[in-house]
């Protein structure tokens, strides 16, 4: 199903961005682990593939930091799944990380494309 070129299109996630992505994904409501990974994948146009070896540690870490909380629910396919949900602390953290990220990308863009800036 997945093409080789699709695989090569993948980008390594920057350190620390996975937390932001998870928090952002959970903004629209509770999701389970598989759901989160699918959301990131489709949301990024198949570019970002989250490795399960990173996803679950991250989820458990965020849960320990009390930014998300987990609950066992029944899925559409009638299966017991553990779904994660943003806490109010998590929402604050999301805002913080997003503004941080925006600043970072703006700064990065400024350095990587100086010509465009002077043209404008």
């Amino acid at each position, binding site marked *: *199903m997945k093409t080789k070129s699709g695989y090569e299109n993948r980008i390594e996630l920057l350190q620390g961005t996975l937390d932001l992505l998870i928090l952002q994904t959970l903004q629209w409501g509770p999701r*389970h*682990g*598989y*759901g989160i990974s*699918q959301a990131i994948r489709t949301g990024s146009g198949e570019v970002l593939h989250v*490795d*399960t*070896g990173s996803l*679950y*540690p991250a*989820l*458990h*870490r965020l849960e*320990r930091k009390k930014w998300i909380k987990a609950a066992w629910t029944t*899925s559409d*396919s009638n*299966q*017991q*799944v*553990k779904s994660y949900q943003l806490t109010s602390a998590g929402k604050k953290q999301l805002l913080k990380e997003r503004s941080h990220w925006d600043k970072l990308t703006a700064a990065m863009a400024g350095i990587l494309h100086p010509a465009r800036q002077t043209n404008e």
Partner: protein
Amino acid sequence: MNKFWQRRKEKDLELDAEIRAHIDQAVRDRIDRGESPDEARLKVLNEFGNVLLVKEVTRSMWRWSSLERLGQDLRFGLRTLKKSPGFCVVVILTLAFGIAATTTIFSVVYGVVLRPLPFQDPERLVAIWTQTPQVDRLPMAVANYRDIREQSTVFEDVAILRATANYNLTGDGDPEWLQGAGIPSNIFSLLRVDPALGRGFTAEENQPGNDHVVILSHALWHRRYGSDINIVGRTIRLENIPYTVIGVMNSAFRYPTRETQLWTPLTVNPADYQTRTGFAHATVARLKPNATVTQAQNELNIIATRLAQQYPAVNTNVRFNVSPLRDDIAGPATKPLLTLLAASIGLVLIGCCNLANLLLTRTLSRNREMAVRTALGASSSQLLLHTAAELLPLLSIGAILGLLAAKFGLRLLLPLLPTTLPRIDEIGLNLPVLLFSVALLLVTGAIVIVISMGSAKRFDLAATLREDTRTSTHNRARLRNLLVISQVAMTVILLTGASLLIRTFVALKELDPGFRTQGVLSLRLAIPRNKYKSDQKVAALCQEILQKTRAVPQVEAVGMGNRLPLSGPSGLSTIEFERPGETPGALSATDDTTITPEYLRALDIPLRRGRFFTDADTADSPLVVILDEQVAQRAWSGENPIGKRVRSGPTSPWAEVVGVVGHVRHEKLETDERWQIYWNYLQRARDRMSLVVRTSGDPHSLVTPVLNSIKSIDPDQPSFAIRTMSEVVDQSLSLRWFNALVVSLFAASSLLLAMLGIYGVISWNVAQQTREIGVRMALGANRSAVLRMVLGKGLRMTAAGIGIGVLGSFLLMRSLRSLLFGVAQTDPVTFLAVPALLILAATLACLIPARRALKVDPLIALRYE
């Protein structure tokens, strides 16, 4: 803990379910997209990666994972330890021995020296002693006490007591000699103690005539009166006088000494309130809250100066010294015990060096393992944790064994302890002692781990992986040499201390005390004055005892004196010599002894001039006196003292000197500078007498016949302190003997440990240098060159250690000076013998590895790597 594992299990199951759900959903998605179930599952699993690894990494996010890792490390540690039992046994035994030695000694030091006294706010209790130009430490004179009590502001209260007020207890049972103390009514409030039964003394009972009341010790009450609850109000007979029991103290109250069995009221005659020279009373005081010992000392200095101005004749240069009561009770035992503690800690440190060395060897031989772990991403803190976890079981087993051994060792040691040691009953493995041991263990462990890991960070990963051992181990080799050098240095110090203490003991043992110690039996008698009221009656009893004892077979000579040699310090009295320029009434440290004619002969104290007392010297004949040679020399230097006269004071009658005898060590073996003056028992009667019996046979065989002869004269007359004179000498040396013995044991052990240390390093060196030795041999080096190389290495380290150790000994032995006798702190014999011994020991330790080096076959050695 159970709950913890329960919760942990649940979390594990949850994680399993979570991952299972993830996989199931992924599979279902793929099936929905048209893949076959088998193909879908295969692809999902492939995509998911290593399920176990994912779980493992996720689990590590959980809070208790570090604890769990410790558990893993511990399990791993135990597994690796199982593979090297020799290492384990050595580590455990070294540790156990060090902990046992130190804990045992510390429990003695704690009980005798450090433990707070069993009174309320004990740190505020102090003792006060008088210092005169002649004697440093004397009891208190009553008039001085009264002035201190009235003038001082730092004390809440001050009390004097008579530390020895001993009694013959008769009636209901065998007659018994009991040590007692005369105490004032205010001592109960001062010490904050109350009798367990009954009440304390009242001020009225401290008045002469009202004082026939007694308080019993818990031990006496239990032993003699079967813990009779109704004892209060009963009458007991002390010195044949009825005393009413008014109280029983609790078992922890052992004041002023642990031998004190009963207390009677201290009575002070009105006349005694005038004396500033009758130094008779121990003094205890309680500081006001927040007052310090220094403040008290300052105030006492001011009072002493004031008294010296008021009473220049008797108080000039008289000072009062104050010290915490606890230190005062521990007294002369403090220094020997602290020396022992220092020696035991030295032993532990030497053991530490060995352990660190062992661990270093171990990490060295596991260098590659460590390098691989580092290469695989183990942080240095993880490696440290790993080493610690490996050591932890060893430390724990060593500690437990050590504490058990200490418990056993203490039981072994207690009977060996000198009976003169105070507070022996308070020695035990109690909480503070255990805390000390735990602290010691932690420090030991920390030192060992830090030393052995200290160089781990510095090691060169690439070189180690290449097996280029020389570069990567250089640092550690130096560290190991340093460890051995410090070991040797500490051993030198311990051996030097032990040697000086042994030589002191030998010097004292060989010292001529001035009297015969072999074949002389002694015992003490307290003649009750209310039974033998007059001096004549006392004298008659003495004569009868002497007569009966002399009739015992094998007895050569029998005498009595009121104080035996080596029975410690006694008070001061005045003596005036008939000579030009003599100031009458001057106080000097005079040692007055009342004796019977044959006393000096029985003790073999030599007659230098004139004669001994004879039966012709009686109460009615002229007063006569015998002096020791030193007094005679000092009083009438060069002149013949026979026929000269002395008297006790301006109002006393003159007595004629009839004999001069040898000087004896009367107070203690080390020194006795006092004027020794002997009086005739018929002319100056005393009711506390010691009987000395000289025999040609074994003095122990005399005990029964002598006791029987005394009993046949007066069945109510108890005898006590039955000892041979050589036992008297040994008892006076018991603390020194104990000290020398234990320090020597520690020093010998440390020598053994140092030898092991040298052996370990040298044999490791030889193993490391196999290739080098092979090359040298291949190039034509002969056996002696190889031997020189190996021995040279060991001896160089030893020499460095000896140098440091000798230097350290020079500095440290200064603090030992007060414990030494007849040997200088820089004793050349010691300072030559100890290094020689160490060189010998080091050579021995090097010989085995040297033999191994000589057997190196160049061909095999070159092929070695």
